[in-house]
């Protein structure tokens, strides 16, 4: 296909990916390609299978059909912890933090998760392991949460928790970032700060973004995929997708 010839190889790609629940196909025949430096948005109505797709890509759900490739390596069905170690990081739609622990500890643990320390090293006191602390602070500064490092993560504001989610994903040194509705519940000011952060991140990583806020999506996305009823309805540049009649009818409605 002309497309794949003109762009570098995909960092993360799926081939006819699918997931059945009982008799219901939540995701069917989805082929998607993510490239470094590109922000790829996935949009669609509720129940379109977007979250299921993200769960499969991050290893929390095993596909029942198709395959997932990371840099020419077949990673279909690998468990979540291995996907993370291979370079697929994600943030969660519903708050999924280590709520009783401090902000710093959340990110430090995330950094430790991919550090691959030998067993003997694990017996060392945690506060002496400076590399991990540095990595944690780095991630916190990137998202703008460094000042809140010692606060309990469970009492952060909603927007701050979303920032923490990103920081944790970053601390795992991903090549691919899967962001599942990161804007949900954010106010307009936080949302703007977030847009800058996102564009920044998209430069170094391959970012997959699932979102409902259409203005935001069209502002930041380099490519888009529209899902309806578990299938891909359209895929391509945002302008093309916006102009697509089928998409307008099925989903965009008044946003065109």
């Amino acid at each position, binding site marked *: 296909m002309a497309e794949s010839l003109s762009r570098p190889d995909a960092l993360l790609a799926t081939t006819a990916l699918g997931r059945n629940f009982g008799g219901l196909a939540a995701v069917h025949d989805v082929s998607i390609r993510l490239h470094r430096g590109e922000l790829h948005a996935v949009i669609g109505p509720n129940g379109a299978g977007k979250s299921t797709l993200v769960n499969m890509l991050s290893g929390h759900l095993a596909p029942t059909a198709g395959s997932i490739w990371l840099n020419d390596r077949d990673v279909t069905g690998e468990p*979540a912890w291995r996907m*993370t170690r291979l370079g697929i990081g994600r943030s969660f739609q519903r708050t999924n933090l280590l709520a*009783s622990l*401090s902000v710093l500890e959340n990110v430090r643990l995330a950094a*430790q998760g991919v550090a691959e320390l030998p067993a003997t090293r694990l017996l060392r006191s945690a506060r002496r392991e400076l590399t991990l602390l540095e990595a944690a602070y780095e991630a916190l500064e990137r998202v703008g949460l460094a000042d809140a490092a010692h606060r309990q993560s469970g009492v952060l504001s909603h927007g701050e928790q979303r920032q923490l989610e990103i920081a944790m994903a970053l601390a795992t040194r991903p090549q691919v970032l899967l962001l599942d509705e990161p804007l949900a519940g954010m106010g307009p000011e936080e949302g703007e700060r977030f847009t800058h952060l996102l564009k920044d991140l998209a430069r170094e990583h391959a970012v997959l973004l699932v979102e409902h806020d259409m203005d935001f999506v069209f502002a930041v996305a380099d490519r888009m995929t529209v899902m309806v009823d578990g299938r891909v309805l359209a895929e391509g540049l945002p302008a093309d997708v916006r102009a697509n009649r089928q998409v307008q009818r099925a989903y965009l409605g008044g946003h065109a």
Partner: protein
Amino acid sequence: MLPETKYGWLGLGLGALALALLPLFVHPYYVELGTYALIAAMLALSLQLLVGCTGLVSLGHAAFYGIAAYTVYLITPENKGLSIILTLPVAVLVAGLAALVVGALSLRTRGFFFLMVTLAFGQMVFFLFHDTKIGGGADGAFLMRPALSLFGFDLPLTRRQRPIAIYYVGLVQMVLMYAGLAFLLRSLFGRVLEGIRVNEHRMQAVGYNTYRYKLAAFVIAGMLAGVAGHMWAMHRGFVNPELVGWHRSAEALLMILLGGLNTLHGPILGALALTGLGEVAQIVTERKLLVEGLVILFVVLVLPKGLSGLRLPGEWRRFLPAASKEAAQPAAESLPHG
């Protein structure tokens, strides 16, 4: 889990001192009772690594405790006790191996299933000793107690001194166990266990193969239970299937709850309290189990945070280990400062 202030550590130190001075001031009966309490405390401490630290509620933990005691019985010849230098490592190793096997299978399950699987494995061990002749069957068996000797050199102890020496052996083991666990909790490994307890799903998402960490904790806890079981063999000189029964496991859980689920010293408090309570109850009534049942009911209904959770008026709180202060403010659990 650990005291967060100087006062907390001071309190612990005073407690340890009090325990160390006990034999000098009380009747030998209470020294022996104290040793039983220390053994119970060690069993509860070992279980706390699973329950309070990692969030794994196991109903079969006493199995490793009993296996260690039975191991001592099985390797000890008929007429002479072996040296503790030999019996302790062997007993702990066997308990650890058993924990490895049971853990590898049980940790494939979670929550309620894990509870049931550990219960069932505990029962398997129970039937192993109850229905076969391995350890004297249902009636149990006496054994020659491990001796306090080093390379053939026996510690010269009179009959009056022996119980006191045994008590100190137990106390030293318990203090070392506490110190070891404290060290473990502060380590990178211990932090992972805490993360697993708080949100295992998230820990997997950031790259941890949580099964391996839980298994490691399970084996360590099993080995520590083995230390307690070995001490039992040393003190009591008798083994029977009750040692591995689920009632014993449930009692260990009770001690943890009684003393406080979220502190490391809680189980020790709980064990001491329960042993003391048992003694007091016996004065009043022969129905020890009835009292135990009522105590558990009371604790579960009225003191959900255990003794560590009892609140004192503001000023007094300064003098308590951090756990009771925790109940007042949601302090962030973070790396220890300073």
